[in-house]
C-alpha cells in the first residue's frame, strides 16, 4: 500500500551497517566507559576524596566523615543513576521503535508528567509517603498518559510525529497544572515534591531503588521478547503481519514495558527529559536498524549519559551542583533542535 512507500527506515540510519564484531566491540567499549563513570561518580563530589579513602569506605566499614559521605550518599546516588539511566535509555528505544517517531521521548510525550501527577495525588491527597505505596501510582499515571498520547497521536495514516509531540505537550501541561493545583492547596505535598520535581539523583536512598528493580527486570524481559517483532514492524505493519508478527500483542507488551521503565524511573528520580530521546538515536547511529542491538546499546548508553550529566552537574558550579535533569535538558534540547531541523524528521 501507499503507506509502505512512505515509511522511512528511520532516522540515523547510515549506509554502512557495522558487522557483528564491531557491534560487540562497541558494546564492550561502552561498558568500559560505564564502569569508569561509575567509579568517577563515587569519587567526584563537592569535595574530592582520595581513591584510597573511597576504597576503604567501600571495603571496610570504617567510620569517618568521608567514608560516611561515600557509603550513604555517593554510592546510592551512583546506583540510582545507573538504574534510572538504564530504564530511561531502554524506554526511549522502545518508544522510538513502537511509534517510529524520531521525536519520541518519555519526557516530551508527557509520560513523566503522568507519573509525577499520580505520585503527587498519592502523596498529597492519600497521604502515601513511601515509594512502595506510590510506585503503583507512578505506573498507573505513566500507563494512562502513554495510552492517551498514542490515541491522540495516531491518525488514520499512521502516527504523525508532530501531533504526537503536541499531544504529549498538551497532556503534560494539563496534568502539570492539576499537579500545581494540588500542591498549592496542600503545602505538605509542595514541600515533599519540590526537589523531586527537578529530576535529580541526589539524596535518593537505595530504599527507593530496590522495590522498582523487579519491575525493571520484567520490562527488560518484555523488551527482549518484543524486539524481534518490533524489528519486523519497522518495515511497516503490513510487512510485519506478513512475517507472522502479532501486532496487537507486540504493542501491548511494548507499552507495558515502556510504562514500567518510564514510570519506575520517574518514581525514583523525578522527571528527567531527553535521555530517552538522545540515547536510542546514538545507538541507532552506531549499530543501524537492529532492534536488539539498539536496545542493548541504549541500556548501556542511557546510564553513560545520565552519569556523565550528573558528574558534570556536580563539577560545573562547585561546591554547589546542578540537578541532573537540568543538565540533560541542556544537552538534549540542542539534539531535539538538530532532529527537528533535519529534513527526514517527516516533513517538519
Amino acid at each position, binding site marked *: 500500500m501507499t503507506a509502505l512507500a512512505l515509511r522511512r527506515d528511520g532516522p540515523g540510519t547510515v549506509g554502512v551497517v557495522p558487522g557483528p564484531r564491531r557491534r560487540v566491540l562497541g558494546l564492550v567499549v561502552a561498558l568500559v566507559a560505564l564502569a569508569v563513570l561509575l567509579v568517577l561518580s563515587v569519587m567526584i563530589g563537592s569535595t574530592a576524596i582520595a581513591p584510597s579513602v573511597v576504597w576503604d569506605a567501600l571495603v571496610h566499614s570504617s567510620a569517618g566523615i568521608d567514608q560516611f559521605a561515600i557509603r550513604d550518599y555517593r554510592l546510592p546516588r551512583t546506583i540510582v543513576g545507573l538504574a534510572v539511566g538504564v530504564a530511561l535509555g531502554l524506554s526511549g528505544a522502545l518508544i522510538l521503535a513502537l511509534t517510529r517517531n524520531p521525536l519520541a521521548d518519555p519526557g516530551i510525550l508527557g509520560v513523566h508528567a503522568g507519573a509525577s501527577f499520580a505520585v503527587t495525588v498519592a502523596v498529597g491527597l492519600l497521604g502515601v509517603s513511601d515509594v512502595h505505596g506510590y510506585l503503583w501510582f507512578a505506573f498507573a499515571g505513566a500507563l494512562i498518559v502513554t495510552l492517551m498520547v498514542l490515541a491522540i497521536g495516531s491518525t488514520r495514516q499512521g502516527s*504523525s510525529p508532530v501531533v504526537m509531540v503536541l499531544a504529549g505537550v498538551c497532556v503534560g501541561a494539563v496534568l502539570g497544572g492539576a499537579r500545581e493545583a494540588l500542591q*498549592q492547596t496542600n503545602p505538605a505535598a509542595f514541600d515533599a515534591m519540590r526537589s523531586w520535581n527537578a529530576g535529580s539523583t541526589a539524596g535518593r536512598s537505595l530504599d527507593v531503588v530496590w522495590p522498582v528493580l523487579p519491575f525493571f527486570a520484567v520490562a527488560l524481559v518484555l523488551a527482549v521478547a518484543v524486539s524481534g517483532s518490533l524489528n519486523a514492524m519497522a518495515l511497516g505493519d503490513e510487512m510485519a503481519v506478513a512475517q507472522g508478527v502479532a501486532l496487537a500483542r507486540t504493542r501491548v507488551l511494548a507499552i507495558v514495558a515502556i510504562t514500567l521503565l518510564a514510570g519506575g524511573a520517574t518514581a525514583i528520580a523525578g522527571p528527567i527529559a531527553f535521555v530517552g530521546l538522545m540515547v536510542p538515536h546514538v545507538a541507532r547511529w552506531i549499530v543501524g536498524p537492529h532492534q536488539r542491538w539498539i536496545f542493548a546499546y541504549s541500556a548501556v548508553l542511557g546510564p553513560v549519559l545520565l552519569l556523565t550529566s550528573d558528574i558534570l552537574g556536580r563539577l560545573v558550579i562547585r561546591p554547589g551542583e546542578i540537578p541532573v535533569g537540568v543538565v540533560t535538558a541542556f544537552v*538534549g534540547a540542542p539534539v531535539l533542535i538538530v532532529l527537528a531541523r533535519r529534513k527526514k524528521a517527516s516533513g517538519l
Partner: protein
Amino acid sequence: MSTGVSSRSARARPAPGERVDSGRRVLTVRWWRVAVRLDLRSVVVCLVLALVIACTAVLALMTGSYLLSPGQVVSALAGGQTGLVNDIVVGWRLPRVTAALVFGAALGVSGAIFQSMLRNPLADPAVIGFSEGSYTGALVVILVANGTYLQLVGGALLGGMATAVAVYLFAFRRGVQGFRLIIIGIGVSTLLASLNTWLILKADLKQAMAAAAWGTGSLNGVSWNQVTIGGACVLVLLLLAGMSSRPMRQMELGDDAAAALGVRVTSVRLGLVVVGVALTATVTAASGPIAFISLVAPQIARRLARTAGITLAPAAVVGALLCLSADYIAQHVAPTPLPVGIITVVLGGGYLGWLLFTEARRRL
C-alpha cells in the same frame, strides 16, 4: 471589483480600490478624514461579549469574603460610595478585575498575532517557549537583582525576546515552517522550564515560594501600581497591533502576495514579533505566565465571528473574558483559592487536545 460598499470606502486612507466584496455585511465608521470598515458580525460579537464581560466583572466585584449587592458595586464604581464598600470595590477588587481584563486582552492579541503570522492554530507564545523565556528573565531579576517592577518588566521582555530570536533562528532553514518552529520551541521551552525549576530550587525558601506561586500565573496581590504601568504598556502595544492588523491580514495570503500589495513583509513581521512578545512579556512580568489564553482566544474568536483569518479585536475581547472568568473560577469556585494560571492550563490544555483531534489531524 467596485461594489457600492467598497467604492464608498475609497476615501479610506491607506489603499483604496483592491477590496473584494466578501459578501459579508460591513459597517463603515467615519471620523474626521479616517474611515474604518468593520465587519458587522465581528462588531456584534464584540458588543455581546462586552455585555457578558460587564456582568462577569460586576459578579467578580461582588464576590469575596465580604459579599456586596450589584447595586453597591455599581454605585461604588460611579463614585457614590464611601468608606468600606468603596475600599473593597475600588481599592481591593477593581485592580484585580482590571488586570484580568487588560492582561487577558493582551494575551488574546499576542496569540492572534503569532497564529496569523505562522498560519498555524497551534502557534502560541506558551507552546513556543516565549513565555518560559520571559519567566526566566523575570526570575533572574527576582532572584539575582531583587529588582523593582519596571526591572521585572525589562527582564521578562529581554528573556522573551531572546527566546523568540533563538527559536526563530534555530527554526530558520530556507524560511520558517510552522511545525518546525513549534517543535523547536517545545525543545527550548523544556530547557528553560528545567532551568527555571533549578533557579527556584537554588533560591532561599521565601523567595522560592514567592517565585513559584508567581510562576503558575497569579493575579493575587496585583495593585493599582502594577495595573497602571502594565495597562499603559499593554495599551500602547495594542494600538501598535491595531495599526499593523491590515498588513498582518494581507500577509496571511502569503509573503509574495502581501509584497505585491505593497506590504514591507520583513519589517512588518519583525514589528509584529516585537509587539507579540512584548505583550506576553508585560503580562508575564505582572502576573507570571498565564498559559493557553493566547492559544485559545483567537480560535474561539474566529469561530464566533466566523472570519476566515485571525482578527485582533474579537481575540482581545475573548481573551479578556476568558482571563476574567478563569480568575473568578480560581478564586471563588475552586475549593481553595488558586492561581488563575492553573485554571487556564487545565482548560486550555483540554482545548488543545480537542484541537489536535480535529484540526491538526485533518491538516497533517
